[in-house]
């Protein structure tokens, strides 16, 4: 077996395959299929300061090679998480990362400060790119000043690994990446979902209660891959790539484009074992190409 470990700032991952926030619950649901300690890391479902009911049903629509979701950050709030969920999952032997959300800078700080106290959470992912909430979320992530403001505030409240999750719904994602790097982010992850929409032609109604939602899955892979490639060239901090990864070849493409690790999201809905297949597939690839370490792949695109 080749050396699959990678480092994202202070985070040492046993392999570069992680689960994307909002697509793997709080890890327990995946652990019902297999031991999640085999994974590189797990980005838990987005958490806000207090309970959020999320958006009304219906929240999802299937699209060509993808899906739209309009979950809207349904969660029971950080306190509930700390008291009820954290104790059950904190001993999984893989990094658990909290996806931090808020409607205001203060709310982001509120969550961050509480997470900072949790020994078994080695990193946070600052979500400034959720397209499914009315306030906060993507509003911060689509402008440099907005992205800078949240990152700066959260950085001052957090001393472990800080990853900022970027929105693809922008003209120049590398500008935003540079902006958050400038405010002390230890890494960036991208992409979050694209704002999309679906209509039922027969009923003439939107398929989502919120009219628009976030597009994910293989449909977005070509755009996500391009953005990861652009950002990897623009910043010095590690990049975590995602968007439509379904198999080892997809994951390797993101690594070649410059990602140090990847997240698997929507693919889990098709088959929760896909991340394990990817780990195995990367290992086989390295063997076949006579490479001893996955780090040889990172940024290895031949131009």
């Amino acid at each position, binding site marked *: 077996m080749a050396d699959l470990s990678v480092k994202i700032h202070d985070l040492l991952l046993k392999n570069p395959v992680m689960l994307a926030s*909002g*697509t*793997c*619950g709080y890890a327990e*649901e*995946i652990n*019902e*299929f297999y031991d999640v300690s085999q994974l590189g890391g797990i980005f838990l*479902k987005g958490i806000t300061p207090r*309970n959020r*009911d*999320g958006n009304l*049903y*219906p*929240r*999802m629509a*299937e*699209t*060509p*090679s*993808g*899906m739209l*979701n309009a*979950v809207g950050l*349904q969660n029971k709030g950080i306190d509930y998480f700390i008291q009820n969920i954290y104790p059950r999952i904190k001993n999984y032997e893989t990094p658990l990362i909290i996806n931090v959300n808020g409607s205001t800078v203060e709310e982001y700080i509120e969550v961050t400060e509480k997470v900072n106290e949790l020994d078994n959470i080695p990193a946070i992912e600052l979500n400034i790119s959720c397209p499914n909430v009315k306030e906060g979320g993507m509003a911060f992530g689509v402008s440099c000043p907005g992205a800078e403001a949240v990152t700066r505030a959260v950085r001052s409240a957090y001393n472990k690994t800080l990853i900022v999750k970027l929105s693809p719904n922008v003209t120049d994602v590398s500008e935003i990446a540079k902006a958050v790097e400038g405010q002390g982010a230890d890494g960036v992850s991208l992409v979050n979902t694209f704002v999309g929409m679906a209509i039922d032609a027969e009923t003439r109604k939107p398929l989502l209660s919120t009219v628009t939602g976030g597009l994910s*899955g*293989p449909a977005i892979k070509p755009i996500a891959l391009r953005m990861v490639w652009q950002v990897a060239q623009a910043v010095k901090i590690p990049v975590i790539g995602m968007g439509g990864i379904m198999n080892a070849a997809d994951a390797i493409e993101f690594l070649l484009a410059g990602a140090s690790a990847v997240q698997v999201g*929507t693919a*889990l*809905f*098709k*088959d*929760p*074992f896909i991340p394990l297949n990817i780990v195995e597939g990367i290992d086989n690839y390295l063997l076949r190409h006579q490479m001893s370490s996955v780090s040889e792949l990172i940024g290895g695109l031949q131009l």
Partner: protein
Amino acid sequence: MGKKSVADFIITENIPLNKDNYLIRLKSPESLPPIKPGQFVNIDIKNSSEIFLRRPFSVFETDYKNNSISIIVKVLGRGSKKLTEVKAGEVLSLVYPLGKHFTYPSPGDKVLAVGGGSGLAPMLFLARESGLPAENMDIIIGARSATDHIDASAYNKYGNIYFTTEDGTLGTRGLVTHHPLFGELANYDKIYACGPEGMMKAVAREAKKTGVFCEVSLENLMACGFGVCLCCIEPTVNGNLCVCTEGPVFNINDLKWQI
């Protein structure tokens, strides 16, 4: 929640039941875990450029000796259509077993099970598994017309089967709730329903009036089927719950239906 699997089942039979219902029997490669009425499987319908996500189907029968299960598929859209075209010998990937089952009736209970459309499968499964004598189990099956009904005579030994049709071509004319048995609801200890939302709400309305215990099985749209995406939620007295893990079976008192 028990252990869940993803497994490649082999189709052993695909039997048309009527113009748009098919019974599909599948054999598991591994030994079948316990599966109870109301639980479902999530099927990857391959070989179609139009279908991206899996489709959920209630388990209809289990056969632990042969490690096989069956489902009844009603053709509704592209996925269910494609699924009914599978042939014996082909392979389908299933995520299973999913969801919570119906509360089993207690010995001596008098039960009314109401099924319609794609909701028939779990009702018949429940009738067979309930452990009750046939005389304690009344089953109403509703449909638009006689030709939409399937032959359920094999289930006569598990209960008394009654039919309703909207056009009166078989059994009582009207909706399931127009059946005379709905005039004597207070006789029952438990009512179960699965089918189109309108039907389940009508049943729930009657059950609520008489205060009889009533469970329904919801068919909300699902992306994952195992509790991670939060797409299938139903508002309940305990907040928005995932139909795929906290359901699909709910007690009507927990739902926030306007009925």
